[in-house]
């Protein structure tokens, strides 16, 4: 293998195909979730600690800031889950062609957006 290979790190010249977007978003959502677990555990703690803290959490969730943070974390989870399921399906050899990959990627975007919108409706 050649030691010095050409490297293109000029992001502005790199145009991602839809499959690339789905892939990088899966990575970003995964990294967001590493910290998002903190929010999920906080929700679990506050909702289970006591009757009072359950009611207090419900009141807090009507605040815009808290709502947005929770929505962001749940959206990352929703996207990561949907794209993760596609990963597992492709690992079984389904949809591995170029065309199949594109179709699957578009499907992931549509389904994930639907779930994220539904989460928004549920929270608001």
């Amino acid at each position, binding site marked *: 293998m050649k030691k010095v290979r050409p490297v293109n790190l000029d992001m502005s010249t790199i145009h991602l195909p839809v499959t690339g977007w789905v892939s990088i978003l899966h990575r970003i959502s995964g990294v967001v979730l590493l910290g998002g677990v903190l929010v999920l*555990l906080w929700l679990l703690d506050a*909702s289970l*600690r*006591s009757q009072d803290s359950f009611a207090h959490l419900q009141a807090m969730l009507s605040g815009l800031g808290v709502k947005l943070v929770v929505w962001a974390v749940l959206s990352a989870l929703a996207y990561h889950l949907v794209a993760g399921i596609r990963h*597992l399906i492709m690992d079984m050899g389904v949809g591995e062609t170029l065309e199949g990959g594109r179709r699957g990627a578009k499907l992931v975007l549509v389904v994930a957006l639907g779930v994220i919108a539904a989460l928004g409706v549920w929270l608001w």
Partner: protein
Amino acid sequence: MVTAATSFSRSGVSDWLIQRFSAIILGAYTLFIVGFIVAHPGLDYTTWKSLFIHPLVRIFSLAALLALVAHAWIGLWAVITDYLTSRLLGAKAIVLRLLVLAIFAVVTFAYMAWAVQILWGLQ
């Protein structure tokens, strides 16, 4: 075979497999909790608590937690070995990667301890 000291299972193939198993457990757990919430509109505290007190749900929660630790470690490892590389950062890269993993180990341990406290403190 290349073994990497900081990967989760010291082998790429088993890391790959663990990443899949843990993804399935985490996905099933997520859908289970979401399903419960959807099936109980206007959820109250007693119903919510009764879910997590159930012994089978406790086992499922523990499995999800263990899956999370493995999944998150392998995931983070994959990401930092892609971006914090010696080509980009020189000799510092390995130090930086070890530092990130060390910090993350502490964070994950704290997550685990907290989750155990939340779920097993219930009565």
